């Protein structure tokens, strides 16, 4: 089909919730107090590693109407909040409440009252005596101290990926180059803090949560409450941002357990400090990468050794670590590879899913290394990459899915031309202290779970209504990216129904069918394709039923029903079929993808480094992405701009440091420096739309990949500006000043 004839695909349809959002009438959980609900204030540990010796709730419980549940009341069942399906084999080390606090912000008790003020006041009256144990703050020594933090004594959670003859690659190499890069622990900083509401209703426990995987929330609750999945109803609530921070289960199990126990609705809401200290973070990584090259700069082999900081509980960090390894063979042609990762637990805020699921970390490590290696060996960094990047439909030697219609070479060559790489690659100095230079980085990310250890499918139904409108019943979790509107565009394109007459549901485990969740960059590629296929099935059913009704062949042509050259009204056809044939037009479809191609992107940044203050200003920026096809171009741009904002923060200013006692140095945005409007460049965006097979109208993912190459592009630009080899992120002013001082030495 000619792209220009699309009615909705690639068009900037206004998102369905935009009007409510600009009116301030789009209710998040905290905006709609539930009748008779208790407000739950969690009592968090102020210590990094401490055992509760005594807990005294007497004073707090004297306040009328206060309900208190402590770790002594809580079930011992251990779970891992990153699991979203039974049998995923993620080590369970978390409980709803604990008498052994393993990080500042660990959950000791839940204090509930009819108002937030009362609950918080009572919470502050609970007296806890702790025996303070040594904090485990350094990933390097965490394995040896494991028994101090967890009674299970498990030192680390290791994993590896290997293929090819690495020994031969390294022994025959002309060059062997190595770098070690560290990436920081990062706060997701969704503007809405974490909240959850649980409502007991007869034998069903209802949980409303702004989450990414309702079926995963249901499963976590079932493990602790010992209830059938069918009796736990999880409803996706309006979401004020997540970026992976609300992907894993955090307060849902605690809230569900408390509500079930008290037989009263319980609402837990958190402050920014509580969300920063007690939810999830991007895992900090220290990675050593070593590359073997032949004399021409062709990669012969690469080895990795990574240490990944899970924080106080394992959470999904082993999954993240393995996902990092899985990305290592999907950008460059690497004939032999060894990837060894070790996940350790420290007495700091737990890590977990975060936009890119390890991809930003692994590509930051390899892309900074690639630039430094090229500089040391005298290779041009663009030519080096062009020589080694994967071409279309190459296989992933690690056993992952075929790479698909890769357009990363086009991204790099077109980007280099558009950004004026050749003209701008030499650093410029002005005023003796301002150093301007350009950097770039390449990256890849996935499109779902096909050919990984996890299953991936989506099940939706589409009903065409008697007035010609449509409802797509789908387990979508709108995270703010516009996914529900994009799916409606797909349905509208196939059925010809005006997009304003299409409703797309969000997940409700009681009424919508199974879906693997809004994670893994699978929503457009997998759920979007499911929406396309269910629409085609509905159209097919409609034409068959209409043909039977009229006893003449009815076809679907150019977005409408046609019978012997005459156009039929879709709503009238549905009505007559229902009335006369006693059949409703509703189909159910399950899509199980058999491909999981790579998305690609290359970002270019021009920065000016102030040698005196150490401040880095991003002047110009270009993001070029291989996305197959934009469903809604404006949404795609929005994802890319936001991804750049996050990546600049990871490169320059965002980190969650802890002192040697495990006390966090950051508790709010006063010391957590997010990129704000004055520091954000106006990026140029180029989309390469070359139709990826297996995606709806050729579309593939953008939300996660858009943040993946940013940090490396920025760091590479700073390193070119200063001639430095900075590899310890973020590049705070102190580190930059220090590097500038060493210039020319």
């Amino acid at each position, binding site marked *: 089909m000619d792209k220009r004839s699309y009615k909705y695909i690639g068009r900037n349809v206004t998102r369905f*919730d935009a009007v409510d959002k600009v009116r301030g009438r789009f209710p998040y959980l905290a905006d709609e107090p539930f009748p008779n609900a208790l407000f739950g204030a969690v009592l968090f540990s102020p210590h990094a590693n401490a055992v509760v010796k005594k807990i005294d709730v007497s004073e707090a419980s004297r306040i009328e109407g206060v309900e208190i549940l402590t770790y002594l009341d809580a079930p011992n069942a251990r779970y891992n909040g990153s699991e979203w399906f039974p049998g995923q084999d993620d080590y369970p080390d978390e409980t709803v409440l604990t008498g052994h606090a393993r990080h500042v912000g660990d959950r000791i008790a839940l204090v509930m009252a009819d108002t937030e003020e009362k609950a918080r006041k009572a919470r502050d009256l609970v007296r806890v005596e702790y025996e303070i144990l040594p904090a485990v703050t350094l990933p390097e020594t965490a394995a040896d101290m494991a028994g101090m933090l967890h009674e299970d004594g498990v030192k680390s959670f290791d994993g590896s990926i290997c293929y090819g003859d690495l020994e031969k690659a390294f022994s025959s190499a002309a060059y062997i180059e190595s770098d070690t890069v560290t990436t920081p622990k990062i706060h997701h900083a969704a503007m809405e803090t974490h909240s959850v509401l649980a409502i007991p209703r007869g034998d069903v426990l209802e949980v409303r949560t702004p989450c990414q995987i309702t079926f995963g929330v249901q499963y976590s609750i079932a493990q602790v409450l010992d209830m059938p999945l069918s009796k736990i109803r999880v409803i996706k609530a309006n979401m004020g941002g997540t970026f992976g921070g609300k992907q894993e289960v955090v307060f849902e199990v605690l809230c569900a357990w408390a509500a079930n126990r008290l037989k009263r609705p319980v609402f837990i809401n958190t402050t920014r400090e509580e969300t920063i200290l007690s939810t999830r973070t991007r895992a900090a990584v220290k990675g050593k990468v070593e590359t073997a090259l032949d004399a021409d700069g062709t990669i012969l082999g690469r080895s990795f050794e990574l240490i990944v900081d899970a924080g106080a509980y394992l959470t999904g960090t082993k999954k993240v670590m393995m996902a990092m390894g899985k990305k290592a063979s999907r950008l460059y042609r690497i004939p032999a590879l060894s990837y060894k990762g070790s996940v350790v637990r420290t007495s700091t805020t737990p890590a977990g899913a975060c936009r890119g699921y390890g991809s930003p970390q692994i590509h930051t490590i390899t892309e900074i290394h690639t630039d430094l290696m090229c500089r040391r060996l005298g290779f041009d960094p663009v030519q080096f990459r062009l020589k080694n990047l994967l071409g279309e439909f190459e296989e992933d030697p690690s056993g992952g899915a075929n790479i698909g219609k890769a357009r990363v070479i086009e991204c790099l060559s077109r980007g280099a031309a558009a950004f004026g790489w050749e003209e701008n690659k030499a650093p410029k100095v002005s005023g003796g202290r301002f150093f301007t230079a350009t950097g770039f980085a390449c990256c890849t990310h996935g499109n779902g779970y096909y050919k990984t250890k996890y299953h991936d499918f989506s099940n939706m139904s589409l009903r065409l209504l008697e007035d010609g409108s449509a409802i797509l019943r789908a387990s979508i979790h709108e995270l703010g990216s516009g996914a529900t509107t994009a799916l409606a565009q797909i349905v509208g394109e196939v059925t010809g129904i005006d997009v304003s007459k299409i409703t797309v549901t969000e997940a409700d485990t009681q009424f919508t069918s199974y879906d693997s969740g809004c994670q893994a960059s699978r929503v457009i590629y997998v759920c979007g394709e499911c929406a396309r296929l269910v629409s085609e099935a509905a159209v097919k059913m409609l034409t068959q039923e209409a043909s039977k009704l009229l006893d003449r062949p009815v076809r679907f042509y150019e977005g409408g029903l046609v019978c012997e050259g005459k156009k039929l009204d879709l709503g009238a056809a549905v009505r007559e079929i229902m009335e006369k044939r006693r059949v409703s037009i509703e189909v159910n479809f399950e899509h199980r993808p058999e491909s999981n191609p790579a998305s690609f992107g290359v970002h270019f940044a021009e920065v000016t480094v102030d040698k005196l203050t150490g401040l880095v200003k991003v002047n110009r920026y270009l993001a070029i992405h291989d996305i197959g096809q934009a469903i809604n171009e404006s949404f795609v741009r929005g994802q890319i701009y*936001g991804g750049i904002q996050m990546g600049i923060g990871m490169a320059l200013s965002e980190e969650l440091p802890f002192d040697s006692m495990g006390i966090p140095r950051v508790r709010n945005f006063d010391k957590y420096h997010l990129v704000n*409007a004055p520091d954000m460049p106006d990026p140029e965006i180029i989309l390469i739309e070359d139709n990826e097979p297996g995606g709806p109208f050729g579309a593939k993912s953008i939300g996660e990949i858009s943040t993946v190459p940013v940090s490396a592009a920025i760091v590479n630009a700073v390193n070119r500006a200063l001639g430095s080899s900075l590899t310890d992120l973020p590049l705070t002013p102190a580190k930059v000043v220090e590097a500038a001082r060493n210039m020319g030495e």
Partner: protein
Amino acid sequence: MHIRLAMIVGVMFLKIELKINGKFRTAEVSASERLIDVLRQKFGLVSVKEGCGAGECGACTVIMDGEAVCSCVVPAFQADGHDILTVEGLEENGELDVIQQSFIDCDAVQCGFCTPGMIMSAKALLMKNPCPSREEIRTALAGNICRCTGYVQIIDAVETTAARIGVCRR
């Protein structure tokens, strides 16, 4: 100076009178209550979001006597006698303000949590400077954090609003 004495009710509460979205309102507030609490809990103006409680993120921005302020760091009693405008007060006769429409048209909204505060900061800028440069818009929005959009489409929306108001000659 336009400060009226607050009447003390008992020991704990102060009675304040203020104008909210064009209407005179009264409330009894405790000394520790913040303007955001009064707006959300007493008047149901839940467009005012709490993102940090420390005046750092701007999600709770309202316009107070023409200036954008973080309502989470304004003690409620200090709002006594003042004029407060929230997003709920922007619509006239059910019609969106031009700035709201521009946010929609420029796709300046994603998760929407920062949106009301962002709109109020931008509105305060445009009330004082109807023809801001892109840099002036950036500066005016410096105290409003958005994690979704990278600000680009938000700045576009403010520029579009200025163009639609039509005072500017560009």
